[in-house]
């Protein structure tokens, strides 16, 4: 149990996001849900924030000079209602723990990101999306109710029908409306723990746009991995992976012995002391991307894969973010509306000639957005890629891309951002003022603060 010492100097430590850039120091304490209100009372002028597993790439889960809370909680406290297909779970529980409880019982989370090491709180606060966004929307669409601890220490239970304004301001609200203590989330019933996957090699960007536009809706899950260094007529060459949970009748005799078996292991860890840029440079990345593309099948249907292999390939190497060395990495993710395919092409073109070494980029076709004023997904195309923080000319390159994205009516994803500007956010999120009004109504003193909120003027 945590000993509450207020904002003493005892637990001060540096925090960064997953990109390992720009550390700031905060008082970090772990608290069970019933002690959160008391802990928040001790927050000083720098306010308080909850941190999940710190899988945001930038500064969303940091609060320099203030209080940072980590919620204790276990998946064993989850309450599954099989008849309604819902689970009620403490917000500090992460998807890795939860899947280990749910999958053997025949249920799957409604949305999973590219890593299962995110908490329920983080999934709601960032309104995360997965490979199924085009048909099932983002995480917030599946939250039936949540308990929110407000700045004054009181708690409210809210949902799409209970205080919908506050509910939607909390979905995608980046922890700035209060602390989500628990949530009830709709689940997907599954027959097996295997995925049935179709894989297709796509030669260029136009072919990719049309393959996704024409075929995505036939699949629950779809995402393309693009080689960001391919140029000219190869621009946008990619591997499109689509699929769904396998049904029992799709399993072979061996798999049928344990249709819901699930127990992913982490295979390896990148040693903590990788020489700066020792592993990643333009040549090694280009070689990797080339091999990866050639290795993919031209077209293959109905391949059975595990959940981890399909959704969370990066989780096989723990702490892989360390390969980027001491200057860390920046993730760049944006969405542009349908009809702005040329803007997407220009972005990929500029990246391909920039020399900023990047592993595979992920391109996805989003479906409809939801009612949250700060939710990122909107109908259109989204691209996400990692760039080493030390890449030459990176600031100018990304600033130029910001312009293209905003001019195309697009926007950037808070959970990935570490470098865009308050002006870019105002332009990309036209409902920002509406969100601020709701936030101010429950947190007039701005108790909830983060490095991201200061940098982007969300708590000015």
């Amino acid at each position: 149990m945590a000993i509450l010492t207020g904002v003493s100097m005892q637990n001060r430590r540096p925090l960064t996001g997953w990109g390992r850039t720009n550390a700031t120091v905060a008082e970090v304490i772990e608290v069970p849900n019933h002690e959160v209100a008391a802990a928040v009372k001790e927050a000083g002028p720098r306010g308080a924030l909850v941190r999940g597993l710190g899988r945001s790439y930038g500064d969303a889960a940091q609060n320099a000079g203030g209080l940072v809370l980590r919620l204790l909680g276990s998946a064993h406290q989850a309450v599954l209602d099989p008849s309604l297909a819902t689970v009620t779970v403490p917000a500090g529980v992460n998807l890795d723990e939860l899947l280990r409880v749910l999958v053997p019982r025949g249920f799957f989370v409604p949305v999973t990101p590219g890593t299962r090491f995110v908490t329920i709180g983080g999934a709601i606060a960032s309104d995360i999306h997965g490979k199924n966004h085009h048909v099932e929307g983002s995480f917030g669409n599946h939250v039936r109710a949540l308990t929110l601890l407000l700045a004054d220490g009181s708690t409210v239970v809210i949902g799409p029908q209970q205080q919908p304004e506050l509910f939607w301001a909390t979905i995608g609200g980046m922890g700035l409306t209060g602390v989500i203590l628990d949530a009830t989330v709709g689940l997907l019933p599954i027959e097996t723990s295997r995925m049935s996957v179709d894989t297709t090699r796509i030669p260029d960007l136009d072919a990719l746009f049309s393959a996704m536009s024409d075929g995505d809706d036939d699949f629950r899950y779809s995402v393309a991995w693009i080689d960001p260094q391919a140029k000219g007529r190869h621009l946008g060459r990619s591997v499109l992976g689509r699929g769904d949970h396998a049904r029992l009748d799709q399993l072979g005799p061996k798999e049928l012995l344990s249709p819901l078996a699930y127990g992913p292991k982490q295979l390896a860890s990148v040693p903590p002391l990788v020489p700066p840029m020792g592993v990643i440079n333009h040549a090694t990345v280009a070689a990797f991307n080339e091999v990866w593309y050639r290795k993919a099948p031209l077209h293959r249907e109905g391949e059975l894969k595990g959940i981890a292999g399909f959704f969370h390939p990066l989780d096989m190497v723990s702490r892989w973010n360390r390969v980027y060395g001491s200057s860390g990495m920046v993730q760049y993710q944006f969405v542009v509306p349908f009809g702005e395919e040329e803007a997407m092409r220009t972005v990929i073109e500029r990246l391909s000639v920039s020399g900023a070494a990047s592993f595979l980029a992920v391109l996805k076709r989003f479906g409809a957005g939801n009612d949250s004023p700060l939710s990122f997904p909107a109908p259109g195309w989204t691209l996400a890629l990692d760039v080493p923080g030390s890449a030459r000319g990176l600031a100018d390159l990304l600033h130029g891309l910001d312009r293209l994205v905003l001019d195309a009516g697009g926007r950037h994803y808070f959970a990935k951002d570490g470098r865009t500007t308050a002006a870019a956010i105002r332009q990309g999120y036209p409902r920002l003022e509406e969100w601020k009004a709701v936030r101010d109504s429950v947190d007039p003193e701005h108790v909830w603060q983060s490095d991201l909120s200061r940098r982007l003027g969300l708590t000015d």
Partner: protein
Amino acid sequence: MDNALGEPQTILLLGGTSDIGLAIVREVLSPGARTVVLACRNVEKGELAAAGLRHGGLAVHVVHFNGSDTASHEQVIADVVAQHGDIDLAILAFAQLGDGAVTSKDVQAASEIAHVNFTGTVSATIAVANRMRGQGHGAIVMLSSVAGERVRAANPVYGGTKAGIDGFAQGLGDALAADGVHMMVVRPGFVHSAMTQGLKAAPFSTTPEQVAAVTAKGLRAGRRTVWAPGILRYVFSALRHVPGPVWRRLPLG
């Protein structure tokens, strides 16, 4: 807040009309920068400098600041924070060279220089550091000088103050690291600026812009000390060990 590329949003220049200081500000400005505060003893002169910096969405403010008036320092810094929020980067660039021939002999003149350059710098730095400790982040650039690396007969008072603040900044920097505050000491050689106008340039002389480039690069890389130009690091690692009689006769400008 700094962003993920280490670009500061709010910059405070103490010695707001310093040629070197202003060059550093220009060098670290990015599209994400929001506010620059120039703290100047001469506000009118400061306004001219501010006009040269203003563009687009960047707000540039001038506040009155006297490096010798140590009693006022905490208030000046408190006002800046109250108006503009966190200070991401503070640059300590105020100092006076004085006339070495005079300050070596005149008690009053010597103690005035020592007071501004050393006591004033220490006081203003502590006031900034206290804020940054509370913020849990921030960077301080301390303009030291090679003149303090091995103090020369020609200007012992100035050189002595630079040696003093150099050591002070290193020690304070180590103390601040645990609080997320980064101190970087910059040791330029002879820089063509208002301070050195009319003086004969020493070997390896440089410009404010070059000092600024070295400073910005050092900040991004998280360095604790940089020299400008970089070669001076090696020159001085040799000069430090030159025997006294030889040192005194070296033609160092």
